[in-house]
């Protein structure tokens, strides 16, 4: 036990003496949270719309006005030529073309029906479907007003055969920050613990100091505990720091028990730190560690459900997620923070990770050799 304390002492001296470590521990989380939470948004705030109004009637002007008046749209230009408009999309100057054909108003008045065309840049599928949804809702609103104006019967506007009232639970305003911040916290805590553990041990290999450790009578478990505990403490600190920032600056809800969250994270860290340790037994240079861990982290992050719901992934991907530790943490942190889940609700994730972690730690300890 005393030997472990000597290792811990040495690790902390080295960590705090390293000039790149302190900014990493304090700066990176703050920057990541502040920047990423704002940047990684799924909302569309400024849609550039190019208008081809061949009708030039009062109704077509009204429709364009409606878009112009919306905070989400900027009219990026107008023309009578659809070729010009297409060029704008090709040059990335516009996201969507609103094409109002000649006779739009006349058809609407005479035949009670008319057509317009929306051409949306589909390179980013998610953005395109959002633009479509926004635009459709603007147009249907316009539709309603037209009916009132044409029929002079305002009660028609209120008339809807079935009224849908949606209420979103746990995130009533669908605030994406509430959703993204816990997700980014997961990545932050995971990277710190997985990456730094692996880097730290391999650095000793590169320097040759590991050989000196290996000729001492120190036991494998003493060395491993001494190496893992500092990063466990730092990871927990990061989580606390991140939650504080989230609470103070983003007002994310903390419905559930913070104690439960930290308890779960301890089990989670067992898995991630063990993976880091395992990587360090496989790699002999820091460069190899970088490549191996970036590969795993990228797959883990993209499949974790931070941006896209895991339930909509194909079946095989959902199966693969059984071994993705990020996936469990991503679910649980949102469950606890937003929904107030209790231990019973997260017990599946908790025990899965406990088994997973014990297995990974066993594997890593077995792989770690004091003898070449």
């Amino acid at each position: 036990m005393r030997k472990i304390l000597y290792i811990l002492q040495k690790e902390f001296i080295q960590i705090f003496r390293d000039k790149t470590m302190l900014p990493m521990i304090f700066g990176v989380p703050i920057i990541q949270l502040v920047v990423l939470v704002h940047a990684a948004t799924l909302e569309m705030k400024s849609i550039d719309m190019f208008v081809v109004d061949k009708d030039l009637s009062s109704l077509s002007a009204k429709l364009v006005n409606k878009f112009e008046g919306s905070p989400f749209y900027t009219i990026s230009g107008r023309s009578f030529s659809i070729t010009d408009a297409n060029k704008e999309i090709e040059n990335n100057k516009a996201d969507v073309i609103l094409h109002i054909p000649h006779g739009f108003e006349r058809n609407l008045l005479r035949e009670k029906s008319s057509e317009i065309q929306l051409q949306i840049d589909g390179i980013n599928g998610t953005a395109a479907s959002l633009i479509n949804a926004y635009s459709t809702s603007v147009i249907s609103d316009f539709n309603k007003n037209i009916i009132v104006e044409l029929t002079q019967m305002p009660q028609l506007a209120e008339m809807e055969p079935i009224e849908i009232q949606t209420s979103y639970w746990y995130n009533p305003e669908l605030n994406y920050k509430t959703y993204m911040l816990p997700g980014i916290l997961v990545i932050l805590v995971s990277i710190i613990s997985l990456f730094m553990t692996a880097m730290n041990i391999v650095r000793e290999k590169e320097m040759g100091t590991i050989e000196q450790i290996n000729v001492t009578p120190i036991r494998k478990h003493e060395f491993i505990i001494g190496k893992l505990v500092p990063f466990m403490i730092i990871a927990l600190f990061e989580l606390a720091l991140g939650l504080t920032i989230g609470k103070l600056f983003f007002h994310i809800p903390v419905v559930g028990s913070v104690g439960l969250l930290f308890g779960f994270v301890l089990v989670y860290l067992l898995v991630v730190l063990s993976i880091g340790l395992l990587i360090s037994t496989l790699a002999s240079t820091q460069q190899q560690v970088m490549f191996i861990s970036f590969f795993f982290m990228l797959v883990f992050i993209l499949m974790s459900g931070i941006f896209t719901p895991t339930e909509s992934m194909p079946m095989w991907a959902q199966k693969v997620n059984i071994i993705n530790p990020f996936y469990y943490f991503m679910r649980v942190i949102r469950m606890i923070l937003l929904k107030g889940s209790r231990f019973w609700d997260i017990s599946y994730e908790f025990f899965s990770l406990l088994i997973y972690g014990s297995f990974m730690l066993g594997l890593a300890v077995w792989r770690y050799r004091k003898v070449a």
Partner: protein
Amino acid sequence: MLKQTENIIEVSNLVKKFGNFTANDDLTFDVKQGEIFGFLGANGAGKTTTLKILSGLSYPTSGKVKVAGFDVYREREKVKKNIGYMSQKFSLYDDLTVKENIRFYGGIYGLPGKYIKEKTDELLRRLKMENIKDSLIKSLPLGWKQKIAFSVAIFHNPGIVFLDEPTGGVDPITRRDFWELIYEASYSGITVFVTTHYMDEAEYCDRVSIMDQGRIEAMDTPALLKKQYNAENMDEVFIRIARKQQL
């Protein structure tokens, strides 16, 4: 120097293979307690391999190896308590101070804190390094680092210390100083097992073995070896042995 006849290292028929390559080919030798044993050979002769086996860093392919009375197969952890080791790759932490390095290694050998403190002060006084005790290792010249590394290797009073080319890359005066430390350790009863390819250092040893292509070609006191090969110095002895192999 007091000579004891007890063997502290016993090696018989040691073989170490890496695939098809035989690094150690049927080595048999003993090292007596308290002696300075020089393990000589050209680069790639297999010295470091033997040293790693003796210090428990590597498993032998076959053969029997006993260090400080313990079998390196079955009682590796007991062997480790009784040995010190200094590798040719420099083994102190660059980003720790002199004092922190000593405290760390003392600590993981399980020495009591108070003892570490007292012995550190005494050691720094002896090395005349009291004024640099709080300097980072990376700021020190190589010769100083080697002296500290050696002192750290014997800090826990092992019965035997293994030195793998401890004086590589420093000037002759610093090497001389370093050998003073080796003598001091030897006087205090520590057996010294040292690999080197500096033949002048071989003269300082009580006994030397000369290795070539994984085999021990000669083993005796420097004086007797010179006589046997009719040579002026160890340099000549070494060249004659290496030549013989080429013919």
